[in-house]
Structures are given as structure tokens and as C-alpha cells.
């Protein structure tokens, strides 16, 4: 890790693709599928981040189910300062909390529009940003 001006390690800014619980999530995204764990016992969605046992009933069996990719903006902010060098040329940029229709929330970005066009409560749908090593789920406003 590199150090900032106060000698602290800078943020890595990347997902852990090999985290065992999350591996299928990232693999499915590579195929442009947004998925979430659903408990085989109580049938409830796990939410995010992925984990080994159901957070509702502690059941150990689950399946990765495809999501509609639709959701709503729970909250929305705009970064005017870059905490990571790779964002220096992107400020100001938006970050949103997206509540997915099937349950679960993701931190993500609304793409293809300026930050001021994004409002809380707006409907969004998933889009995929393919990077060299992984694919990020992002969202766009539903017209």
C-alpha cells in the first residue's frame, strides 16, 4: 500500500475477488448477471455483503439467484474531494445507495447523468462496467 501525506496507507479501492463468500458474486457479474444469495430454508434474501450463513435463520444452504437489477435510490451524495488518486480527474462524482427490489442494498454509482440529476427515491436499473480484472454493477436512471 502507498502512503498519504500523513504516513497512513492509502485506500486500495478494489474489491477482494477471492473472498470465498463473494467469489460467485464477482464471477456472475463477469457474465453480466447480478445475483444475491437466497436462503434455502427460510427463503429470505441474504442482502450484501455475501456471507456463509443466512443472516435471518442461520441456515447454511443457499442459492445464488438472479436479480431483476431494478431498484431505488435510498440516498445519494457527490464527492468533491478525491480520497484516492484514481478519482482526481473524476470529481465531483456521485455515489448512491441503491435498494434493490428483491432486497439488499449496494453502494454504487448512477452513470450517464450528472450528479444533480439523481434524486432520492428515483427508480434505477443495473448496467455493467467491465474493467480488466472484474465487472462492477452500476446503475442508470429508468426513464
Amino acid at each position, binding site marked *: 500500500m502507498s502512503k498519504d501525506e500523513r504516513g497512513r496507507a492509502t485506500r486500495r*479501492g478494489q474489491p477482494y475477488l477471492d473472498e470465498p463468500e463473494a467469489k460467485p458474486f464477482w464471477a456472475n457479474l463477469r457474465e453480466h448477471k447480478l445475483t444475491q444469495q437466497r436462503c434455502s430454508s427460510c427463503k429470505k434474501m441474504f442482502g450484501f455483503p455475501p456471507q456463509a450463513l443466512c443472516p435471518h435463520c442461520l441456515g447454511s444452504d443457499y442459492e445464488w439467484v438472479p436479480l431483476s437489477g431494478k431498484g431505488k435510490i435510498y440516498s445519494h451524495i457527490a464527492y468533491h474531494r478525491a480520497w484516492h488518486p484514481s478519482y482526481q480527474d473524476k470529481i465531483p*462524482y456521485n455515489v448512491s*445507495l441503491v435498494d434493490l427490489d428483491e432486497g*439488499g442494498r449496494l*453502494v454504487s454509482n448512477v452513470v450517464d447523468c450528472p450528479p444533480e440529476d439523481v434524486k432520492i427515491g428515483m427508480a434505477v436499473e443495473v448496467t455493467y462496467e467491465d474493467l480488466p480484472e472484474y465487472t462492477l454493477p452500476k446503475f442508470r436512471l429508468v426513464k
Partner: protein
Amino acid sequence: MSNISGKYCIVGLGETVVGKRPDATTNSLHLEAIKACLDDAGIKNSQVDGLLTNQPLNDSHRSYAVKVAHMAGIDPLFATDLALGGATPIAMVQHAAMAIDAGMASTVVCVHARKRSTADPTPGHPIRRGDEHWEEPWGHFAAAGGHAFAASRHMYEFGTKSEDLAQIAISTRKHASFNKNATLRKPITVEDHQASRMIVAPLRLLDCSLESDGGGAVLVTSAERARDFPKKPVTILGMGQHHPHFSLLDAPTLTTLGGKKSSEMAYKMAGLTSKDMNFAELYDCFTITSMITLEDYGFCKKGEGKDFVKNGRITIGGQLPLNTHGGLLSQAHLEGQLHITEAVKQLRGNEVEPERQVANAKVGIVSGHGGSLAMHATLILGAL
């Protein structure tokens, strides 16, 4: 269920000079705070038998409390690091009272210091919160971002404006202007707040707390032993905690936080209500944090914080003086350790600059808040 309200007291406090301390280290600031605390309490290190610390940000030592104890010449029967972010200093006082109640110690130092303004030469690796890899790939890196999400949502649900948040920054700065050990002492206006640069919208620079070097400590003992100490004891009347989520991803709401249940528990333990509080020292890592806590603590209804903070109500001389030392926003950010020492000083009387002494201060409430708006702890303190 037993109630330990009134059985344990704070009988000593120490604060270091805060701000930029380039010649200090994390270790030296802990020692400085402990020495000041023991001097204030009029006892020797050999008379202390318990020590609690906050897990250091720079994780150079496991069991840091044990290291700090031995650096300070303390042979602890009870010691541990707590790790609840900015709720830790209050949790330390709670754990100290619980340990004494359990018979595991009699005289416990709770110490916290940070080196965040100037470089810390102490070797080690930085601690991470835990779920950053579910936030950073989308550009969410900072506590300012998490609290901006809460502010944005509070504005959406209740019509709160940036100018309302400014009232907290302005009042807090006024209190800091009276505090000789505060980092920022020049009074500010709504115009200054609105002209300050955007950090993470909707939060501006003057909504954000400082990054500081410094430390503080308090000494906890039983009410019986407290009578033998030179300073007026300050009694622990109520305490509570609640941690309703861990990350932004599992937060049921960002406009009501752990403070609601935590304060309900503390009020119940103390047999008091929000109306009994003469002042409040509420965690203010960002202005929005204090506004949500004012509501969660019942000083006003949910969503009415924007009106409550107006017309001098939260300033010295007003209905509920808030953050009488200048808080994290203007005095120093030491994870709320100095919210506790300030409350103790207010209740002792005659220990702060007269301009910021709350008249007839008998009972005050203190809050701590940590992580992704996740952890919360409450302390109600009273003068005997």
C-alpha cells in the same frame, strides 16, 4: 436486574494539549493523558488496578491496554482494548463500572489518545473498518461520505437544509472560542459555512470535524471510595449502547441511529428524561451526527432537529448547551474522549473558562458514535 446507577463515579480527568503535536507519539500521548488524570485525582500509578484503551488506529500492538498499563507503571488486574470507534471512550467508562461492580478491579483508568494531525512515527499497520471493499470500488472512501448519505436522507425526509446544519457548527465554534485548549477559535457565521468548500455533498468543510493529536483520560471508582478523592466526584447515573447495523449496506435507516435505544436505556437506568439534562456533549464527527442524536435522545421530535438548533437554544445560556468545549468540530477530534472530560468539568463547576460554564449544571448527557453510523453509546453523568 440490578441497577448500578449512582454506584460508580469519575474522580479524575486528564487532557493533553490538543492540535498539532509533531514531537509526540501515540504512546507518549497516552502516557501524558494518564499522568494528567492521576495528578488530578491525587493518586499514584501503583494505586490503579485497571486500564482500558481504544484499539489504536495504527495496530502496532495487540492488547494495547496491557502495554499502556505497563508503560504507565500500572499492574492491572483488569485490562482490555475496546473497538467501537467513536463510541469507545464512553464504552470504556461503562466497562470500568461493570468491572468494578464485578469485583475485578477498584480503580480503573480509561485512556484514549490519537495522532491524526501530524505523522505518527510508531511502526505498525493501519486498521480498517471491515467492509471497505464493498464501498471503495464505487468511489466511497470516507466517513464524510457515510455521513453525507445520512444528511442527504435527512434533508429528503424532513426538509433539513445545509443552513440548519450550519447552526451546530456556529454554536460549537462559539464555545471553542472560549476554550483555551481548542484548535479552531475564530467565530463563524452562516455565510462562512455556506462559503466553505463542498467535501462530500451535501456536507461542506465546516460540517466536518478536525483531525487531531492529543489524548484524554478519566479515572473510575466506586461511590464509596470516591469520597476519599480531592475533587468533587461525578456520578455515573445511566448508560446504554445500541449498534443497529454494521455497514451502510445493512442499515435499516440512516435517520434514526443507535442513539434512540441507547438513550432510552440510559434514561431508564438513571430514572431521568431528556428534560432533566442541563447540557449535552453529543458526538459531532459531522454536524448531521449531532442533529440526529438530538432527535434520537428526545430533545425534539424526529425531523425537528432543524428547528431545535436555532435561536441560541444549543448555545451557552440557551435551553440545552451543546458541546460546550467546542466538540470534534472545533476543539479536537479525539473520538469523543474530551466530550466525557468536558462533562465532568462542567459538573464539577469552576473548571472551565467562565464564559462556557453551564450555570447550575447538575446532570448532563454524553454520546459516542462510531463506524458507518453504526455504533452508539450513552452516558448520563450527575453531580452529587
